[in-house]
């Protein structure tokens, strides 16, 4: 699946989730790979890795709603908000 990752204020990336390596530590990764046959489903965290961001420095929004990063990607457009430093 092709996903548009819009990092607000920075770049927009087109990511093909079939080409992502997957994250064996994610909930989705664990469940998908438990039978040892299929590629793990890509998560929002995998999308972030692909654009070189840590889940700890951004929020991921789908249709304006925050989503847990360990969940399988279920949208073709996600918005990524970087944390703003400073209190």
């Amino acid at each position, binding site marked *: 699946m092709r996903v548009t990752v819009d990092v607000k204020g920075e770049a927009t990336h087109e990511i093909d989730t079939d080409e992502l390596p997957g994250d064996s530590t994610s*909930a989705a990764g664990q469940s998908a790979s438990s039978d040892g046959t299929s590629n793990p489903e890509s998560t929002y965290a995998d999308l972030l890795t692909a654009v070189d961001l840590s889940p700890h*420095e951004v*929020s991921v929004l789908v249709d304006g709603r925050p989503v*847990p990063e*360990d969940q399988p990607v279920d949208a073709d457009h996600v918005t990524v908000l970087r944390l*703003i430093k*400073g*209190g």
Partner: protein
Amino acid sequence: MDCNRCEAEAVMHAAYSGAHLCADHFRESVDKRVRRRVRRDDLVPHDISPEDPLTWVIGLSGGKDSVVLAKILHETFAEDPRIELVGLTIHEGIEGYRDKSVDACVELADDLDIRHEVVSYAEEFGIEMDDVVEDDPENMAACAYCGVFRRDLLSRYADELEADLLLTGHNLDDEAQTALMNFLEGDVEQIAKHFDASLGPLSERDEQDEFVPRAKPLRDVPEKEVALYAHLEDLPAHITECPHASEAYRGEIQQLLYGLEENHPGTRHSIISGYEELAGVLADEYSGDDGADLRECGECGSTTTREICRKCSLLESLA
């Protein structure tokens, strides 16, 4: 994915606890952590009364952290006649940045109906950070100047407002970075000072008559969760980074911690937990050393270890 506590959809996952929470349960979890920290740090003494309330001054920059802190403290203590909250905002003179965040502070203080004071480098020191960065007489990063001036004004105005406590919005990431930096710099005495300055429970700190005690009730909450809280509550947090921000070493530590947290969830919590315990031990070890060589600055009269305080010497080189 459902929330672990109800059937609503989860909006976040905390790898360090394994929790998936919906918006309501996430907000409740943040509120609880802040209130627990207020209790653990003994911030509300048992012997206060409505006749003689405490004044808590919140350093309100207009960024997400201080805005979230002000909101939660207000929700917790708005009905408590023993505590009065005051917002204190400092305008550093950074064009296109601070004006907007001061607006966010004014809006929040209006919404919460709390007293709000704004002070500026221009009025207090006759300088603006935009010019300081241009001049840079000491060949330092902008934050090095700004930190000295900000700490001076926070202390001075906390004093003038007769504050019993000065509260700042440092989050878990900020504190874990500072802890790691102190370790890596081998600055053992600084770790001891950190306990007496802001980390230790008020009842366990060495008395420091010269300074208003500080507290950081947001320090159990990761930065990402503070931002999510501000987003979900639609708080008027200012969303632009300071154009002069340049703490290179802190940025390096931050990236290191992101990697560690990813591979070993809970690293920030364990760093802080161990650091606080160690700081308590060190504060005992160094107890009595502090304050021996404190004196009044020859220029402004503020408490310092030097003949002329750092702020006055910086102002002199900027003149």
